[in-house]
């Protein structure tokens, strides 16, 4: 069991990141902190995707001047790149909405700046 720990450290990190992020999104009230929680969640899921492609003893999947041997899988890296791009757009959109809310209500506490209730 102990010899599997070094290979599993990235997965433990993913579980920690996702757990912390879900805690932040559900329980924190400041809107900027909610946006940060979504950024951390996204980082955790991207780390999970890249770690899936690892093959023991593999090198980077590039043909230019590369040593011989097995390569790690390149497809999860393409999926992660798409996810990072989508994440940038979503964070930019959320930050813009927070800025508009601050300009209207003067406060970014999620309980004090709510207008739609019931």
């Amino acid at each position, binding site marked *: 069991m102990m010899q599997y720990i070094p290979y599993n450290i990235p997965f433990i990190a993913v579980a920690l990141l996702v757990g912390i992020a879900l805690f932040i999104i559900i329980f924190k009230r400041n809107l900027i902190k909610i946006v940060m929680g979504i950024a951390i*969640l996204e980082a955790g899921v991207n780390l999970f995707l890249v770690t*899936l492609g690892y093959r023991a003893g593999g090198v980077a999947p590039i043909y230019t001047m590369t040593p011989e041997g097995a390569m790690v899988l390149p497809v999860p890296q393409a*999926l992660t790149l798409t996810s990072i791009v989508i994440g940038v757009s*979503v964070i930019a959109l959320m930050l813009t909405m927070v800025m508009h809310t601050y300009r209207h209500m003067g406060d970014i506490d999620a309980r004090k700046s709510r207008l739609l209730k019931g």
Partner: protein
Amino acid sequence: MEYLTVHSPILIVAVPLLAAFVTPLISRMGNKVRDTFNVTLFGFTMFLVAILAIDIYTGGTRVYTLGAAVPELAIPENYMVPVRIMFQVDGISIFMGLTTTIVMLAALVYSLQFLKNETGQDRFYSLLMLLYVGMIGLEFTGDMFNLFVFLEILSIAGASLASYRTNLADAVEGGFKYIVISAVSALLVLFAIGILYGQYNLLSIAALANAMQFNTLDMIALAMLAIAFVMKLAGVPLHMWAPDTYAVAPAGITPMIYTSSAASMYALYRVTFTLYGGHFDTTAIGWVVIILGVLSMFIGVMMAIHQTDIKRLMAYHAISQSGYMLLGVGVGLAVLTDPVALASYGRDAMNGGIFHIINNALYKGMLFLTAEAIFFRIGTRDLNRMGGLGHNMKWTTIFFIIGALAISGIPPFNGFASKLLIYESVFRFNPLLSIIAMFVSLVTLASFTKVFYSAFTGPEMPAYKEVREVPRSMLIGMGIMAACIIFFSIFPGLVVDTIVAPATEALIDQASYINGVMGVAP
């Protein structure tokens, strides 16, 4: 024509995308050029959807592979599994495509005159086309990761459009809630796709369905996918964003965001029926879907009774009507492995649930458009301040009456046809569920009677004496939906046999979906 039919799955996605990219350049030449450009390209897309629908209903599933030598070549030479991005269109995909296209047509025509005095109009039309591309891509795709990408496209476009009126504080709040929920649910979908890819090294839905072994990791992935899609379609434990977002979205955007929730429901069905369908006993999953449906129906309509904001009230009714769809298809999922029950009432339940999707998109969309028409003229959504609008806004009142009668399930409208299918088949499955459904329908009628009474009847209020009818393009937008409702009401049998029954067949029959891709191995 043959060329257009073969290439239509990708052209339906690519032509509105081209319109979305070119609109900022074309709008420098003036507003009229931009409007005609968008309407023309969307008309071409509608024509392509029509010929693809005729081809699917006569021919069967159609596969389109991007970047291959021939469009139908799903598996390249010397490979055993599909490796390219694929679009796979079968009966239920084209059914959802038809729904989306009709709602988009009404929303586009409605928005032409709604936005006359707003700024940033070219971005509105760009984002509207991107929202359409996201929905159609979600419905036509045959690849799990493509599903995630189109889900994110439609979330971002929908949230930007929902908070379009940035001068109002509550619009930005509604959009913010929508994007937070959509981002969390899409990241859960990506996590589940990662789990499935790590096990099987495959991303296409047909190949995954072929190789699925259903061990513990697959059950975790199914649970995450189900939670993510229920979050997105505003099913009851996770429905808090829906009333806020539906209430503040402008012009024809609320029907489009509502139809994107229906597209998430389609994605839920695609994952449970096709990806996980043939391997295990689906009774437990079916019962979970049924319980979600009953909760949505009941809580949706109970929360709707005491609302005073007209669009918020309609949003709670939209949540409750989604419960009907989940109930109908959930009964079908629960009896999927039991051939006797499936033949006697399972298919009818699924027919009812799926027919309810298009009915609901039509009459709920029209009710949202009438509420926006009222807001356009008098500037408020509060029912306590409205009254006597029926004297001046005659066409809006007629459309509202049609929509309210259809949603309550009054014969002869199409709401009655789909609800009757659901009542009869669910009664044979479990009588209690059917009685709850009928009770919810009664309370819906009561709630809409209250809205009609307070908004449209009564003496004419002095503040609203100069209120005239809404502009013509908005009336045409609502009229398109009313015409479809009346057509579906007069010929429900024809609609069920032509459009709904192939969709049910496509969901139940998992093997033909897999053969559409894997059967073309060299």
